[in-house]
């Protein structure tokens, strides 16, 4: 019976699935973290009054958003090594790097949007009481904008978690890679890929719930949609 067989395959390979899920989580977490760090830098560059910096950030963001992620992954894995041996990354590093550099462009736009949606008077009030631009950013603008960007950030996180499946193409042994491997071994696509999809869903669902919790926890009383 196919169902029983399917269940048996999953049970037999549970360790492999879990190990692969661990790699997926690793790629996603490091990719998002790298993307966040890069995103903050890019967003601040774009908003900078020093024009060349703003242009470089804009060009970077446009190129990343205008080309396929899969090509970016191939480029970093196969292409960078050709440019310099120093840039010869293993598959996992290349995968994390590609996702991180890609996500940085999207996160930059989310962060920029968040910063720009903080009312202008907030910066003026901070500056006119003697705070430096950096202090105002750090203590007034960013704390408010992070709260405002949670919904868009949730979207980006869920997208990136799903996009980690693309690094299977450069032989990172993550969920999709293992799913494909087991499918070709057992020729039982439905239960195996169904289980793989279920694991992705658990990850994305948990992420969006956690983000919703954060949104609620860090809501500003009397500000926005609460009470």
């Amino acid at each position, binding site marked *: 019976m196919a169902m029983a067989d399917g269940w048996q395959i999953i049970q037999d390979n549970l360790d492999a699935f879990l190990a692969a899920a661990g790699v997926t989580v690793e790629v996603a977490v490091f990719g998002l973290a790298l993307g966040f760090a890069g995103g903050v830098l890019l967003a601040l560059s774009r908003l900078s009054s020093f024009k060349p910096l703003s242009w470089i950030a804009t060009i970077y963001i446009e190129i990343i958003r205008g080309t396929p992620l899969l090509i970016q992954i191939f480029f970093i894995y196969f292409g960078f090594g050709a440019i310099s041996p120093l840039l010869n990354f293993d598959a996992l590093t290349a995968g994390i790097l590609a996702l991180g550099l890609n996500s940085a462009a999207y996160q930059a736009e989310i962060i920029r949007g968040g910063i720009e949606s903080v*009312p202008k*008077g*907030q910066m*003026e*009030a*901070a*500056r*006119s*009481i*003697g*705070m*430096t631009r950096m*202090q105002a950013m750090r*203590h*007034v603008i960013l*704390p*408010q904008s992070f*709260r405002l960007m949670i919904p868009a950030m949730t979207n980006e996180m869920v997208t990136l978690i799903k996009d980690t499946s693309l690094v299977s193409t450069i032989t990172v042994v993550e969920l999709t890679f293992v799913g494909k491997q087991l499918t070709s071994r057992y020729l039982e696509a439905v239960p195996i890929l169904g289980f793989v999809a279920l694991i992705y869903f658990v990850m994305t669902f948990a992420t969006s719930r956690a983000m919703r919790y954060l949104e609620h926890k860090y809501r*500003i*009383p*009397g*500000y926005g949609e609460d009470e």
Partner: protein
Amino acid sequence: MSQDEIIRAVNIHKSFKGHEVLKGIDLSISRQEVVCIIGPSGSGKSTFLRCLNRITEPDKGEVLFEGKSIMGPDVDIDEVRSHMVMVFQSYNLFLHLTAKKNIMLALEQVRGMGQEEAEARALDALSKVGLEAKADAYPGQLSGGQQQRVAIARAIAMEPKLVMFDEPTSALDPELTYEVLDVMKKLAYGGMTMVVVTHEMGFAKDVADRVVFMDHGVIVEEGDPDKIFTDPQNERTRQFLKRVLKDEPGPPPA
């Protein structure tokens, strides 16, 4: 310059997109003086105020604070601003911080105070505006009048040498205007140096040491409030006062 002078603006010019908003403003303010700037909307009052601390950068002219120019690139403008703080029409309280934390932030970041000292100072400032009970409320949980009083507390907690008010009651309902003006009066009588851009003629009449009437980017007339309100010398001042005082609740007709 007189010994008492705290700030002097010299020939301030400012244009926005080719439109000249300030056409050479000169004004000197003494310590403990309360100066009210009045005039029609678009006369450049607020822009002038914002040029005093360079939140808006003047195109031309100079501001001297305590006798020293604040225009050069080697001036620590942040330090200067911390001594001449501003209160805004839209309050501009930091929305993510409680009333108390709103006041503490600059004390800690700008004055370098420790948390305990800043907190004590914040609570003291809140009690001066009658809002110690709201120390832990967020701006969104306060009425407009209360928010503006917290903003005033935030300003005076810095122990500034000058407080600039930019139409502090224009966003408020009439019954809330009163509580803010009350706080400002107390401040003025306590010897605070104040520049107030306002539409509240009653306040200007009662509290100001000097009233400055601006129109079309120039100071048209300035002087003692009694003189300005009862015997304005310039036709534009007369027209303006006639227009705004008509709406003020005066004594009932006999």
